[in-house]
């Protein structure tokens, strides 16, 4: 039997190369996470400023400028929704605490915009439908949430600026969200609040379309 000589230097070199690759990988990961945090934080700050500005515009311009304000409101909500979805993907990659705090800020922005949209409907008489969507991202907690999200995205694309969607992750610790969950009696996910009516469980595309259409004063071309 041959006893193979152990080449310590060769093993050490292999270990050093492997360690180097992994260290570079980890550094890339850390840099990426920091960049993502910076991006989402900046957006949250920008959203807050946009919201304050929009609220001031409402106070200052009043009814005459409703169409312009409604358009800005819709654009802000859509941008907020897109970035909230992006943030959720980032959280899947890294569970840094910073992300959770930013996510809470996003949720509060969603609630703020939802209240502003309600107010705008009263003040401007806008013919839009608002949907509050309660969901959970935790595995095993809501099997149908992903499908409900896709349906809402599709309907948003269909009804464009006449449908406003606000997504709220029920697992975020926030007193305002807790109050909202309790007042709307959210016990089953996914849950939708279309204007003031609650719908629990997965609502299919056709059914949801019918519900949305029933809330329009002047029927949409898709209804």
């Amino acid at each position, binding site marked *: 039997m041959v*006893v193979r000589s152990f080449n310590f230097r060769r*093993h050490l070199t292999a270990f050093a190369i492997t360690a180097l690759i992994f260290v570079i990988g980890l550094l890339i990961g850390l840099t*990426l996470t920091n960049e993502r945090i910076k991006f989402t934080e900046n957006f949250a700050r920008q959203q807050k400023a946009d919201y304050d500005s929009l609220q001031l515009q409402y106070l200052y311009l009043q009814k005459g400028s409703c169409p312009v304000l409604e358009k800005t409101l819709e654009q802000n909500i859509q941008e907020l929704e*897109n970035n909230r979805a992006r943030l959720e993907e980032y959280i899947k990659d890294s569970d840094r605490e910073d992300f959770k705090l930013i996510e809470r800020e996003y949720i509060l922005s969603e609630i703020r915009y939802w209240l502003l949209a309600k107010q705008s409907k009263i003040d401007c008489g806008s013919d839009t439908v608002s949907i509050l969507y309660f969901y959970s991202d935790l595995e095993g907690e809501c099997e149908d949430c992903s*499908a409900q999200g*896709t349906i809402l995205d599709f309907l948003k694309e269909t009804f464009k600026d006449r449908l406003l969607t606000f997504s709220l992750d029920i697992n975020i610790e926030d007193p305002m969200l807790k109050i909202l969950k309790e007042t709307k009696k959210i016990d089953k996910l996914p849950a939708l609040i279309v204007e003031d009516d609650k719908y629990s469980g997965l609502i299919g*595309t056709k059914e949801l379309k019918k519900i949305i259409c029933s809330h329009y004063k002047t029927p949409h071309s898709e209804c």
Partner: protein
Amino acid sequence: MFHLPAAFSVALIAIVYVTYILSKYIFKPALNYLNDLSYINFNVPFAISKSFEQFSLLDLNYMIMFLGLAIITISLIVLKNAFKFTQERMRTALFSSSLFLIFYPTVLAITWLGVIFDLVRGKRQKW
């Protein structure tokens, strides 16, 4: 001693692990995505436009991409040298080479764990 059972065990662990990883991170999300699409009548243009609309360079996971690329490159170098050493033609072993590329990193990781374990307990490997 026990080289063949050890090799079989490593291969079995690698197959189970790779299957688990593939099903968890590729097959299950793909099935869920198809299920979601079924609710909007498989409106693929909408799904594609939505993905493009929301795409940002920050969304890519560069860490996974770098590690994946490094592992594939090392595997290819090992594969090329193996063919050179055995003087075999690469074309005749396309299937086994593909399997090697999929399972080799896992097999290698498990083998290295074994090597470290042997080093720690001061075992001298006989061949």
